[in-house]
């Protein structure tokens, strides 16, 4: 048995998760957690949540993790190319009907700084007409403009254009 003294954070073992903690885990706003659990009639009276609540929020909110630790490139250009590849595969439905996904799905799994960079890059893609923004009950949704999908695919492998886009995304934050 360990003899390390317990610190106050170990008190978390004594209780279930708070709404804040679940929101941090799922990378959504706590009010999104509340909305999903309310609409599925599963918000507990004491606001204490367990892993079943987490699954409920994930399902109801259509939360997706587009990035996990193993496949996150260090280079911004490669990160953007990776995002474009995901956009093309995940937002193109077999029927050809464009699929709408939550905007925060595109960033989930990344560190905050890289999320900020990619958010600006997504804004560039919207300005260039590759993506459309839609209002949805759970927030901002993103969809692929099918008529520009081929060009977007070409952009992902065009180093010069990709680099230009990365520079613009950094410029938006006043970094260059």
């Amino acid at each position, binding site marked *: 048995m360990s003899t390390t003294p317990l610190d106050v954070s*170990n008190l978390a073992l004594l209780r279930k998760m708070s709404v804040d903690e679940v929101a941090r885990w799922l990378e959504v706003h706590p009010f999104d957690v509340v909305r999903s659990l309310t*609409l599925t009639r599963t918000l507990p*009276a004491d606001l204490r949540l367990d892993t079943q609540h987490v699954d409920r929020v994930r399902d109801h909110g259509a939360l997706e993790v587009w990035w996990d630790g193993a496949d996150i490139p260090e280079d911004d250009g490669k990160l953007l190319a990776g995002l474009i590849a995901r956009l093309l595969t995940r937002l193109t439905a077999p029927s050809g009907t464009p699929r709408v996904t939550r905007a925060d799905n595109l960033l989930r799994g990344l560190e905050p700084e890289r999320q900020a960079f990619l958010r600006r890059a997504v804004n560039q893609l919207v300005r260039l007409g590759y993506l459309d923004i839609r209002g949805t009950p759970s927030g901002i949704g993103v969809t692929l403009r099918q008529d520009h999908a081929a060009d977007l695919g070409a952009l992902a492998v065009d180093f010069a254009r990709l680099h230009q886009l990365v520079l613009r995304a950094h410029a938006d934050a006043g970094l260059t």
Partner: protein
Amino acid sequence: MSPETSALVDALHRAALADSEPALDEALTRVEAAQAHAQAELDALRERMTALAERRKALEAQRAAGSSASRSAHEAVRDGLCADRDRLVRRAERLLAEQRRREAEVAEELRAPELDAALREVERFQTEIEPTLPTLPHAYRRAILDAHERNQRLLEPYAQALATVGAGLDLPMESVGIVASAAPASGRPEALVVVLPVPFAVYAEWTTRPEDLATRLAYRFVSTVHRLLADAGASDAPVEYFDLYGCLAMQAWVAEQNVTLDLREASLARIRATAEASSEWSDAGVAIYGVWLAPDLLSEGAA
């Protein structure tokens, strides 16, 4: 020149040219009559001007009074919201300090060897053992679960002490209002607005704020609004959060949802139900009530 004056001038001309006394007399009589008529008209106009001036003065006074009353109403709403928010913030700070004090106290108590061991076993159960339970033989699984339940029972009083921080503090009761409104004031609603007596930072700065009484009030009443929207068949209504006088306000756009529910009645009933549903408010010494206001009283720029 009017036709009458023109005729009079002509008559005077003719009389002067004719130089006849009767004609001059007649002309003078007509001039005197015209003068009297003009004077009467002038007097009537003066009276009318005086009456209009008085009427204008009365209307201006009325308008000034109305504007002042409207301004006073806006100021009263703003001051009421801010005062409720400040009261709740002070109470939340008081409870958070108590929470911290109690956490330190419980952490100290948990250093007792038996409790320390139980807590470490709970930690091990949650991180290592629980995921493997389905793979274990039934008897072994049962024994592990029994041990875990014993540990939980041992630790339960400490968990309870952390969960009911307000209870036993005997705090003086503070009342705070949840303000609701719908726009337009009559007819088919286009927007439902609910203002909570908590700082806007509860929404905007949630990553850096502790989860306190204000946060939990927001969670419960955000849930209440979503329940209300679902009751109204408007669960898909877009909802926005915004800052109103430093308070957290939420607005649901229901114009396209064909809401037939009486939003005033339903909102107040839902707010009342939420206020009565949790013992957290009475433990914290907070009484919550709902208020329905005309939408123009919530328009910030009008104040």
